[in-house]
């Protein structure tokens, strides 16, 4: 059976499963549509949240990012997991106790202000829409690369699947498909990882294998450090960026993670406050299975790749792989454009080294190397892994299904956050408060369908700045939503004026800093300073500024609320009541 056919069968089977769940989990009320009737088991919700959170980028790109950045990629590993500690301790239980349907609804009620609710809706939609574009593109790319369809057909298939379970099932349908998607993606990720770890280090647990020894008895990480230095790169395990930038980037990713609405609303679906706390713990367990495996996949597949092209002594002529001897997977991935070879010194052999390192240039010249000849797309570290480890076709097909599951589950979660903000916060909350339950449910379904169409359109015609905005969505969530949510719970004195001042200053500070380096409204060429470390203020890059924006937000929120009247008595009582688990 050919690889494409196997892939069709496995991807088809997972899609059939998602549709089956959709038919079973149809939402009959707004409560079911928005928060799955608040009846989701905390462990099940942990799985669903893990799938909701881990996107196409986590699944496909993260290991490659780790491979090429080494230690410096730790900011993503810690940033995207440490945020759950903040979410579990500072937000999830209290927002669950509040017991409503959306994040802007909490902001509107707590700060007794419709404008505040609308600002929150805008922040939510900007962050979620830019995020969803990446997922839609991931679906289209996966289809066109592995199922040999066009990009458009791939995208439409993805939209159709999400449409079936999200429009009819709402949060209920999404929750149960996300659980299935989690299972698909975690099997797809860990099976090849176990085999590659066995092959390289003899240890089946990738988390231990990363500290294990390779064939010649040296530690894998030590070996990798040495090879990279011999090829003109920095050591794998040392810090290459500045401490301050790593500090703030990690902080921005953590605070941003905790402030992302599509993650927060998942905690509205469990029955009790104590379930919300427990569920956050399980979420992190399920995320950690992938996140602690990814560093092993990154290091091992990178080691494999270097060893493939540099099987012998570095510098010796026959030390490099002759192009005519490349393994089959190499040729296959060359066709996709993710691997590229250009024989710059016409010796018929592949040289992979750091040609940008001036200190290494004399050595390279001595070796007769005339430039790095291998271009590697980072996504290959996960997608080519099963082939490099010589696993059967069904494992390769499962990897494709896993990537699609990661993209679909995150897309559905984001679309849920967007559609509930539109139907519940804008239509029911502001435009037509008298709308009936049935009318609201219908408008929620229409909003969901509309959001899917818009996401699909943007996936087909991605705005040029999409990639940059996704990287900054965390900064925006960190500087606007998280501080206001936290202050709303932990400061009884925090009032409407303070919250608005905080959101506006935090958001503007972050946006302006970003625009200075990335161009005003991301228009190319309008940046006022070059986006390179030597021009960053104190070495803090635009992606790391969200944490500083959060501090600005908190500072102005506290200052302005001190100078203005305290919130009304019923609001202070609301704060008291969300701090206690039992309903009074």
């Amino acid at each position, binding site marked *: 059976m050919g690889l494409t056919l196997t892939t069709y069968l496995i991807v088809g089977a997972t899609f059939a499963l998602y549709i089956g769940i959709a038919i079973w989990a149809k939402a009959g009320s707004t409560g079911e549509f928005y928060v799955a009737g608040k009846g989701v088991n905390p462990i099940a919700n942990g799985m669903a949240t893990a799938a909701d959170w881990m996107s196409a980028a986590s699944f496909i790109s993260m290991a490659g990012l*780790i491979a090429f950045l080494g*230690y410096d*990629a*730790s900011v993503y*590993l*810690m940033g995207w*997991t*440490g945020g*759950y*500690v903040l979410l*579990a*301790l*500072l937000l999830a*239980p209290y927002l669950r106790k509040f017991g409503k349907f959306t994040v802007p609804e909490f902001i509107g009620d707590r700060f007794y202000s419709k404008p505040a609710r609308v600002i929150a809706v805008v922040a939510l939609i900007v962050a979620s829409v830019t995020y969803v574009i990446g997922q839609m593109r991931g679906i289209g790319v996966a289809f066109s690369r592995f199922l040999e369809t066009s990009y458009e057909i791939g995208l439409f298939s993805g939209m159709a699947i999400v449409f079936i379970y999200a429009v009819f099932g709402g949060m209920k349908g999404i929750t149960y498909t996300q659980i299935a998607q989690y299972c698909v993606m975690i099997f797809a990720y860990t099976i090849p990882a176990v085999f590659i770890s066995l092959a390289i280090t003899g240890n089946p647990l990738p*988390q*231990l294998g*990363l*500290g*294990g*020894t390779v064939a010649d008895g040296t*530690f*894998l*990480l*030590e070996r990798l450090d040495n090879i990279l230095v011999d090829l003109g790169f920095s050591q794998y*395990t*040392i*810090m290459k960026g500045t*401490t301050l930038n*790593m*500090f703030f980037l*990690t*902080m921005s990713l*953590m605070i941003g993670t905790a402030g992302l609405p599509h993650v927060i609303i998942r905690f509205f679906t469990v029955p*009790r*406050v*104590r379930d919300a*706390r*427990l569920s*956050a*713990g399980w979420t*992190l*367990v399920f995320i*950690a299975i992938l*996140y*602690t495996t990814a*560093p092993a996949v990154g290091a091992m597949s990178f080691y494999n790749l270097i060893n493939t092209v540099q099987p012998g002594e570095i510098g010796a002529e026959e030390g490099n792989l002759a192009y005519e001897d490349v393994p089959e997977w190499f040729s296959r991935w060359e066709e996709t454009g993710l691997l590229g070879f250009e024989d710059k010194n016409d010796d018929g052999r592949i040289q992979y080294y750091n040609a940008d390192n001036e200190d290494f240039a004399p050595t390279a010249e001595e070796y007769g190397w005339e430039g790095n000849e291998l271009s590697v797309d980072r996504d290959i570290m996960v997608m080519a892994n099963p082939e490099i480890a010589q696993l059967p076709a069904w494992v390769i097909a499962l990897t494709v299904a896993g990537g699609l599951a990661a993209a679909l589950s995150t897309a559905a979660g984001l679309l849920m956050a967007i559609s509930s903000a539109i139907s519940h916060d804008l239509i029911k909350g502001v435009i037509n408060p008298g709308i009936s339950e049935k009318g609201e449910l219908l408008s929620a379904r229409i909003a969901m369908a509309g959001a899917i169409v818009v996401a699909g359109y943007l996936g087909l015609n991605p705005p040029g700045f999409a990639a940059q905005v996704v990287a900054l969505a965390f900064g925006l969530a960190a500087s606007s939503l998280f501080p206001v949510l936290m202050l709303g719970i*932990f400061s009884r004195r925090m009032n409407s004026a303070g919250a608005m001042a905080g959101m506006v200053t935090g958001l503007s500070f972050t946006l302006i800093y970003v625009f200075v380096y990335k161009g005003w409204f991301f228009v190319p060429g309008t940046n006022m300073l070059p986006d390179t470390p030597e021009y960053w203020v104190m070495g803090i890059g635009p992606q790391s500024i969200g944490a500083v924006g959060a501090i600005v937000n908190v500072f102005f929120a506290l200052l302005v609320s001190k100078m203005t009247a305290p919130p009304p008595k019923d609001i202070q009582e609301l704060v*008291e009541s969300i*701090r*206690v*688990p*039992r*309903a009074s």
Partner: protein
Amino acid sequence: MASAKEEAAKAYWKENVRLLITLLVVWFVVAYGLGIILAPVLNNIVIAGYPLGFWFAQQGSIYIFIALIFTYVFKMNAMDRKYDVHEE
């Protein structure tokens, strides 16, 4: 009666915040202290094939984050019961 209840709510909240601060100090020290600021120094120590700073940054911190959340869950459940604010 109402004031006794208020007092209890205040004490519950105070104890809750104290627990949060303790856990967040650990969170901060592990991620930012051991994982970033002290990582270059800790990398001189190699345990089970891992330079220690690198291990904290790519493995250890994540395990400790999980432990922190479950510690929080168990302590809060006990605290809810102690102050009689637990759910059914």
